[in-house]
């Protein structure tokens, strides 16, 4: 199965990549790990005439911590996130998600940046980055800018990136000491995309009252979903079954899952409800562990 013909460039740096993207406009595409783009090209869902390979650009694959934020280079592959000690200690929610993505081969090539730019409504990184209130650094012909994750996703497979922009880095504020996060995904089988998934990042005070909460949901609509409505129910409250049940109800109201082979919209809503309640309980128990 062969994609349509294209011309191929290896960019040596971000500026060169951006220049090529501007020169060829809508007919050009970035390729990173290729784990979404190549299947899309084979199925003719994407028909780029020019591919700009950014995988060889130095300095875009890293995980570090600076100014209270974990920063992850766009070319960092899923496996590196899965294996990172920094991620395990600072952002366990990401450590939950990484091993659930595809299979080992996909995680060896697929990148965090590629997954976010591909913007699959059922992708795993979208909900996590939303719950963590991440920011995305993009570089284009007009220089660098930072987008908030909640503004990044526009529609299924569509983001706010301009055609000449390259995502270079994802910046994730490290939650305070009494924080905990968890990501849960229900899939039909190991390695499949989510039927539905939920990410919860919580901060509790000494009395166990929720100071801050971020909720992200996957396969819950045409984009990864941030759910302020459900967050509002939990904020200022102790984590209890009643509170979480109401939050779950609001999530299922906010969600508009795309019905597909993985389930009807109605079924996915039920899954979302269950996952939110379970993920929030795990997140709360992790707050205690770290206290």
């Amino acid at each position: 199965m062969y994609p349509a013909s294209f011309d191929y460039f290896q960019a040596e740096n971000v500026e060169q990549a951006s220049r090529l993207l501007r020169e060829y406009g809508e007919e050009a595409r970035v390729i990173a790990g290729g784990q979404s783009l190549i299947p899309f090209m084979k199925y003719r869902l994407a028909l780029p005439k020019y591919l700009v390979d950014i995988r060889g650009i130095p300095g875009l694959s890293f995980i570090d911590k600076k100014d209270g934020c974990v920063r992850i280079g766009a070319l960092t592959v899923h496996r590196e996130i899965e294996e990172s000690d920094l991620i395990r200690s600072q952002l366990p929610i990401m450590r939950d998600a990484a091993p659930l993505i595809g299979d080992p081969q996909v995680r060896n090539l697929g990148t965090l940046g590629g997954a976010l730019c591909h913007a699959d409504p059922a992708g795993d990184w979208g909900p996590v980055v939303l719950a963590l209130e991440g920011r995305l650094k993009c570089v284009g012909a007009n220089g660098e800018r930072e987008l908030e994750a909640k503004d990044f996703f526009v529609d299924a497979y569509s983001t706010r990136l301009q055609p000449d922009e390259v995502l270079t880095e994802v910046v994730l504020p490290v939650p305070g000491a009494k924080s905990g996060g968890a990501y849960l995904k229900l899939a039909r089988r190991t390695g499949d995309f989510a039927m539905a998934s939920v990410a919860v990042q919580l901060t509790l005070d000494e009395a166990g009252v929720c100071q801050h909460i971020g909720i992200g949901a996957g396969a819950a609509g045409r984009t990864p979903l941030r759910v302020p409505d459900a967050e509002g129910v939990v904020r200022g409250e102790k984590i209890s079954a009643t509170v979480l049940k109401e939050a779950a109800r609001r999530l299922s109201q906010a969600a508009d899952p795309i019905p597909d082979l993985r389930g009807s919209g109605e079924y996915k809503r039920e899954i979302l409800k269950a996952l939110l309640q379970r993920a929030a309980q795990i997140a709360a128990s992790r707050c205690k562990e770290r206290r």
Partner: protein
Amino acid sequence: MPDRKRVEIKINGESYSAEVEPRLLLVDFLRGIARLTGTHVGCDSSNCGACTVMMDGVTVKSCTLFAVQANGREILTIEGVAKDGDLHPIQQSFRDHHALQCGYCTPGMVLSALFLLSKKPNPTEREVRLGVSGNLCRCTGYQNIVDAILAAAKRGGQVGRRPT
């Protein structure tokens, strides 16, 4: 027609160079140009893992990678796993445990097992199952494959070492 690109790929220690269309998939470089047909094509759509090879020490699906992306890199295929006619311990273990029937998935399975054991020399059964979760087998029901990999790991030593 877009320009053909010159690519040079080291496969099992030997350099292969060719001018290729950018859309040539790595698996077809391996099978068609390098004439190494041990790497199989199953689904051709990133799902089955029959085309699994190692690139710079990690497993990848060669049907989901363009040859131009592998330019200058090192590939290990199943042909490079045995040394001088001696089966690699993982291959021997597959043989001992009847871990293949038609054999179509086997090259990919062996590469995935090799990668798993390079990362986790003493995997649990669950880790083995997850380690080959990107490889489908239509014949064995997997149990013998899992047994073979666990047994290979038990032999210890350098089982996960990449053949050089």
